[in-house]
């Protein structure tokens, strides 16, 4: 009975206020960064600081959608679970019908389509989630896609979603160069996060997606090493000045 009214309707000046509010919810979420290198994709996330008694291993923001596709998100974690589940199912469904592994753009379009559906359906609210999807296309090129609550999606060289979106994006725009190798891509990702994440490298997760290889999570010690190198470089620069 109460399903007869849509929640997301146009405002007098042509905005979908609920969608814009959903974007606000995304801006409250912890930061997620994706960077595309020459033949590598790196995802970095700011981990929400866990309570003392909480098991930090159960809070995972970078998830596998299929063997060759990964994604991360910013915003409402519970909403993201729904999208992730649907995406995982769609990947297997695609393979069931076509025997080929799903394309990165295909699954991005699917996730974006789902997000859009919830902005034009009765009785539902939009997903309060933006996603970053990484994988390799059929020609073997690395691809990074971003979706948002409105259902828009686009391909990026490097992108950031979540609470520190602005400063991190500015940093990426300044420092991104085309055709970076794996080391440079990883360093750029870590560097972009270290500035904005509270309490430093302990709250950063980095995942590397190489072609035809399963996703690899960078170890704690390696992240700490790289962060240390940045800090030493910074000190050196300050001393020179």
């Amino acid at each position, binding site marked *: 009975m109460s399903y007869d009214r849509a929640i997301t309707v146009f405002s007098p000046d042509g905005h979908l206020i609920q969608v814009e509010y959903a974007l606000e919810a995304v801006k409250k979420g912890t930061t997620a960064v994706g960077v595309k290198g020459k033949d590598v994709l790196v995802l970095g996330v700011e981990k929400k600081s866990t309570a003392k008694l909480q098991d930090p291993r159960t809070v995972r923001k970078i998830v*596998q*959608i*299929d*063997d060759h596709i990964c994604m991360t998100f910013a915003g409402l974690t519970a909403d993201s679970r729904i999208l992730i*589940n649907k995406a*995982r*199912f769609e*990947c*297997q*469904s695609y*393979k*069931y019908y076509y025997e080929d592994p799903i394309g990165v753009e295909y699954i991005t379009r699917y996730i974006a389509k789902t997000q859009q559906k919830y902005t034009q359906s009765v009785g539902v609210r939009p997903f309060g989630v933006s996603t970053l999807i990484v994988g390799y296309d059929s020609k073997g090129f690395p691809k990074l896609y971003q979706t948002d609550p409105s259902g828009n999606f686009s391909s990026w060289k490097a992108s950031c979603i979540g609470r520190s979106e602005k400063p991190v994006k500015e940093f990426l725009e300044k420092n991104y160069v085309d055709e970076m190798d794996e080391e440079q891509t990883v360093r750029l990702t870590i560097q972009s996060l270290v500035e904005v994440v509270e309490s430093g490298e302990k709250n950063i997760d980095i995942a590397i997606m190489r072609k035809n290889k399963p996703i690899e999570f960078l170890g704690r010690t390696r992240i700490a090493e790289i962060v240390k190198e940045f800090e030493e470089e910074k000190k050196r620069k300050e001393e020179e000045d």
Partner: protein
Amino acid sequence: MDSLVGFVGKNYVIMAGDTNAGRSIMRLKDDFDKLVPIDSHKILAKSGEIGDGNQFCNLIIRNVSLYRIRNETELTTKSVAHYTRRQLATAIRKNPYSVNLLLGGYDKKDQKGSLYYLDYLGSSKKINYGAQGYAALFVGSILDRFWKEDLDFEDGLELMKKCLREVEKRLIIGTRCFLIKMINSDGISVVEKVMINSEKKNEIEEEN
């Protein structure tokens, strides 16, 4: 017309299937792989209707993959057997799949191989050795006599070839080519594609 044989050895499972795909009296394909990998350490050997086998195996493979992606862990052989059986059991009362299966798998946790016999009616049984199709008529007694627990791989391969030789010898419909696969801790590997020709023995008699 299909012949599938499988048994469990020391830390491995060995399975063999004939490579014929036919329709009534015609052989359509003689390099048909009936031992389908479900994941890195499990094989579903299918026999019966080819279309049903393809469709059903696809269904199982996709659902096992979905489980693995969702839960970041692989199912055990036992779980897959139960799941497969459940699918067959619900189907038999609606739209049956005409497939009989042998499910072989290696579980890293137990470090043991296991073999399951599943048929289109929804039966499922964990077995040490067994066969599907016409092979079952001939191979049962051989395995009853010679199968032992914890057979080495060489002995296991010999025993398998013994079984396949018997199938080739006694089955009136020509099933000469068999594909043997093995699952162990390293995963699935193709052992051999054997061509068995027992007629060669009669060369001497023909000359006389």
